[in-house]
């Protein structure tokens, strides 16, 4: 029996061959995850619904690129969603936001789909982030998971912009060493 990951990969490749039933199946299995990505980054339900539609149109259009991407199937889909939402964020007019709304959501433990992300990669990045100071690790996570800009991160951590840039760049150097080990 195929793993969940291999099944998703199969659905993506059948989508590349214009199999509409496979595309519907792919949506059914992955849209909750990608909606979660859009909601977290955009922080607006209406925008997230609109973005989700655009994301799956991109998935349909780019399904043939998955093979060369180097991602696991779920992570490729997440990357399409994340990148699309980041593009939308950058295009937004700046709005003063209540940063208290952006508190980390409590971790309720991995669902089967979350487990399909790959416990190996998850352990690797978590382990390397744990080696950083807590606020530096939070900044990296904030950039990836919440799409925070340098400005937003500086505000969240109450430091000047240049300090945040330095923190993050030093953290990325250390991360790279750890991730290549």
């Amino acid at each position, binding site marked *: 029996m195929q793993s969940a990951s291999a099944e998703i990969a199969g659905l993506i*490749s059948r989508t590349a061959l214009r199999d509409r039933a496979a595309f519907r199946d792919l949506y059914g299995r992955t*849209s909750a995850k990608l909606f*979660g990505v859009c909601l977290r980054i955009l922080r607006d339900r209406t925008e997230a619904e609109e973005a989700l539609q655009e994301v799956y149109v991109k998935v349909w259009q780019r399904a043939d690129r998955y093979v060369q991407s180097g*991602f696991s199937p779920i992570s490729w889909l997440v990357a399409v969603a994340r990148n699309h939402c980041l593009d939308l964020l950058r295009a937004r007019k700046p709005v003063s936001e209540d940063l208290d709304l952006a508190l980390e959501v409590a971790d309720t433990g991995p669902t089967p789909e979350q487990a399909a992300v790959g416990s190996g990669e998850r352990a690797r990045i978590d382990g390397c982030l744990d080696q950083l100071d807590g606020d530096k690790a939070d900044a990296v996570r904030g950039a990836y998971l919440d799409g925070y800009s340098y400005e937003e991160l500086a505000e969240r951590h109450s430091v000047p912009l240049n300090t945040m840039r330095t923190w993050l760049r030093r953290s990325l150097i250390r991360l790279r*060493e750890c991730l290549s080990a």
Partner: protein
Amino acid sequence: MSMDDDRSDAGHEDSLLVAEFALGLLSAGEHERMARRIAAEPALRAELRMWNQRLAGLDAQFEEQAPPSHVFSRVEQRIFATRAAGGGWWNSLALWRSVAMGSLAVAVVAIGVNVMRPAPVDPEQFATQLVAALQSQEGSGVEFVALYDQATGSVRLTALSGEVAPDRDLELWYIKGDEPAVSMGVVPLDQRTEIDLDATAREKFGEGIILALTLEQKGGSPTGVAQGPIVAVGAATPI
């Protein structure tokens, strides 16, 4: 390997820029410049792949939330609305037979064609040449390179020497946009193949067209529609 070793400052800086690019931290202008550099420099592409793969370990933390039920029909409308209600071509067919990928004993050796090189081509002066690297789908080990020459109207296919199970054949398909896949016939593994395109295919062939290989019974799919699993797929780019 310490970052303090003899790596040049350019290497340091580039690695950081790629990481910031992956995290979405660059300004719009910086992001676009970096995107172009990444497209042009294989070392940066490799660096980006590394960062993307490692950072993707955080994806487990995105929580799932069920979207409203109307969303998918809107997705289909966006993709298919302009097409005639044909689309059911795939839906009426037998679904893919599941073939354990591990049972495909196809070993292929990559030939050295640089399909990533973005060479400028003046379409007025040169016949359009497109190349597609059909890359292996999970586990199949099948890889091909296909070359299309508009001047001759033919597609040349080169595989890597290998074996398909004796009761199977590989069948080649082209897919343009959202239209159904069209067969280009059975393709032998052990020799270079040249396929002359008919007028319809020549009209459709262009950048971005997708070529795919499926594993079919001997002689190819009898229905004119792919029945077996996809073992390799790639998109054509100009060379």
